[in-house]
């Protein structure tokens, strides 16, 4: 190598290191979000929220005098890519914790990497199997599907409806919901009379719904993320089906109402509290966090914050709290995370323990109904 070039390189390297010596090194947090691809509706607000809250923490002086540094990679919703990037975060970027990935499929693929690297991972996806059985290094902030299913079944039980049809999307989210819908039904005295699926890219679900119409169920539960459920709602209306339609928390954003239009009216779904933050009573423990998140997001991105972004917000805050409590290494953060009690975040009130790495109770969800193109809390 040319000596001049060599000198420059040495100078650059020295500069880099000396900079690190003078200021306390930032705490590096990795993030894997599906910013592009089919799950971009999750990854995009997650990335924005995470960046927003990290910037805010740093502006307020960081945590215990140390700044946070967020390294975000885009997985495009691809499990293989997520695994590669997770390895990169651990081996090259040397992060002390990872936030994400956005989808259950990616998370399941990344779990072995995080466990081998002994790095705490806070997933932003909902699948129950992520934290059940409990894995030492894996936590999550998105509400379990089981809780959402429980919310719907609670309501059906109260209104004495016992026969349901389910229509689930054939991806990780839908498969997990389908499993929960079927396994919890008996507990609430409910029978699943028809069980159909649709592809995430399908453009017409009238065939499945025609079959459901023939099954004489008392409620239809559709489990998927946009745009599928909006099409289902439209198709239900087209076929003149009068059976009440329930959706999953996967569509609890304004986008669903916008896409489904009039067909969304009367649809009920379990939702994180963020979409109805201003309707909540003042006594709600989460109200303060919720209002802060919604306002901040509005200010930064001129858009309403949704609960997907909230998952990332929660994850960053959980790590911040762990660091605040004295942790700085990967193992320390993990131990502190497990000690989290009563943290009122966006997704709910988190209580992690050695036997529960999902940390949320049924109160994380409220049942909402679409009325006049807005959400109403169903009492």
């Amino acid at each position, binding site marked *: 190598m040319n000596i001049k070039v060599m000198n420059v390189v040495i100078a650059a390297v020295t500069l880099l290191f000396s900079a690190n010596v003078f200021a306390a090194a930032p705490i590096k947090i990795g993030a894997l979000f599906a910013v*592009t691809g*089919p799950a971009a509706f999750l990854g995009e607000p997650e990335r924005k929220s995470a960046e927003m809250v990290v910037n805010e923490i740093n502006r307020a002086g960081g945590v215990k005098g140390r700044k946070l540094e967020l390294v975000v990679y885009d997985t495009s919703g691809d499990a293989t890519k997520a695994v590669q990037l997770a390895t990169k975060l651990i081996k090259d970027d040397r992060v002390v914790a990872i936030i994400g990935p956005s989808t259950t499929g990616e998370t399941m693929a990344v779990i072995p990497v995080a466990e081998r690297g002994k790095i705490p991972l806070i997933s932003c996806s909902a699948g129950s199997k992520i934290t059940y059985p409990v894995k030492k290094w894996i936590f999550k902030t998105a509400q379990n599907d089981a809780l959402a299913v429980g919310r719907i079944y609670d309501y059906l039980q109260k209104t004495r409806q016992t026969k349901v049809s389910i229509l689930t999307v*054939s991806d990780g989210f839908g498969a997990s919901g389908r499993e929960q819908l079927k396994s919890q039904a008996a507990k609430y005295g409910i029978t699943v009379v028809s069980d159909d699926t*649709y592809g995430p*890219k399908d453009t017409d679900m009238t065939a499945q719904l025609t079959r459901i119409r023939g099954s004489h169920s008392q409620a239809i539960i559709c489990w998927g993320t946009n745009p599928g459920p909006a099409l289902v709602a*439209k198709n239900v209306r087209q076929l003149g089906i009068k059976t009440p339609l329930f959706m999953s928390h996967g569509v609890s954003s304004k*986008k669903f109402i916008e896409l489904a239009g009039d067909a969304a009216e009367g649809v009920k779904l379990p939702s994180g509290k963020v979409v109805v933050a201003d309707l909540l009573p003042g006594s709600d423990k989460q109200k303060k966090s919720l209002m802060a998140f919604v306002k901040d997001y509005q200010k930064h991105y001129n858009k309403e914050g949704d609960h997907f972004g909230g998952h990332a917000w929660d994850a960053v805050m959980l790590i911040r709290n762990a660091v605040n409590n004295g942790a700085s290494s990967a193992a320390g953060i993990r131990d502190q995370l497990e000690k989290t009690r009563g943290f009122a975040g966006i997704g709910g009130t988190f209580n992690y323990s050695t036997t529960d790495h999902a940390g949320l109770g049924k109160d994380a969800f409220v049942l909402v109904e679409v009325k006049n193109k807005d959400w109403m809390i169903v009492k």
Partner: protein
Amino acid sequence: MQFDQILQYTLSGLSTGAIYALIGIGFSIIYNATGIINFAQGEFVMLGGLFTLSCLEFLKLPLWAAIPCAIAASTLVGILFERLAIRPLKQPTPINLVIITIGGSILIRGIAMLVWGKDTHSVPPFSGDTPIAIGGATILPQHLWIFAITLIIIFLNKVYFYHTISGKAMRACSYNRRAAGLVGIDVRRMVLFSFIISSAMGAVAGIIIAPLTMTAYDVGVMLGLKGFCAAIIGGMSSGLSTVIGGLILGVLESLGAGLISSGYKDAIAFIILLLILFIRPQGLFGKSNSERV
């Protein structure tokens, strides 16, 4: 009840099938004029829907004006694609051309993602969304639009290819490009024409289906593949057999989803594609040496 269900499956299938047919015809027109499969065809479907959306929301045009604008804009993209990507090619072997169209489709999709974002968008229906009952089945006014517009396009196609000079010239190119060139037909011009027609047609398909299925930057992939299946079933003809191919595909998909299992819906389309390619590569209705326009 059973009969009602079958009727509903059939009607749903016919309406999706009509869309497949329109996209399929786009494939075969370019194939016949140039001998290449234009895998970017699906992207024009996407562009049609999204340009309509932009005309409605940003230019605040009424729907009747937004549609021609969107078709024109998509056609312009088709022309640019032919001029910038297909024509300058030094060695226009089929394999090079096919790879270029695949590359083009990825590029167009990527640009669309940057322009319109990753969200799904809804486009208002042409004339309300009050369901219409036919027997025990229901369809939407938009379905009638789809059927009507498909019929009109097939009719216009027929008139163009059999009763105008440039249509006849394009058919001549499809029989024998060299000979067509020798009698004074500007073959490259015909190639450009074929791109104009098929991108406009793709855009129309995208526009009329958008109110039903909504639209996003990535809807072109699956629709493009299904359209390709329709074209293969129809033996790459740009006439009635591709239309029938599309309709058969749509109905079988819908019946399969309803009667067997919804999980196999896409599998059905691709099994049909494979079977046709194995058993009757000339298409369901083609004789092995039939005319192909």
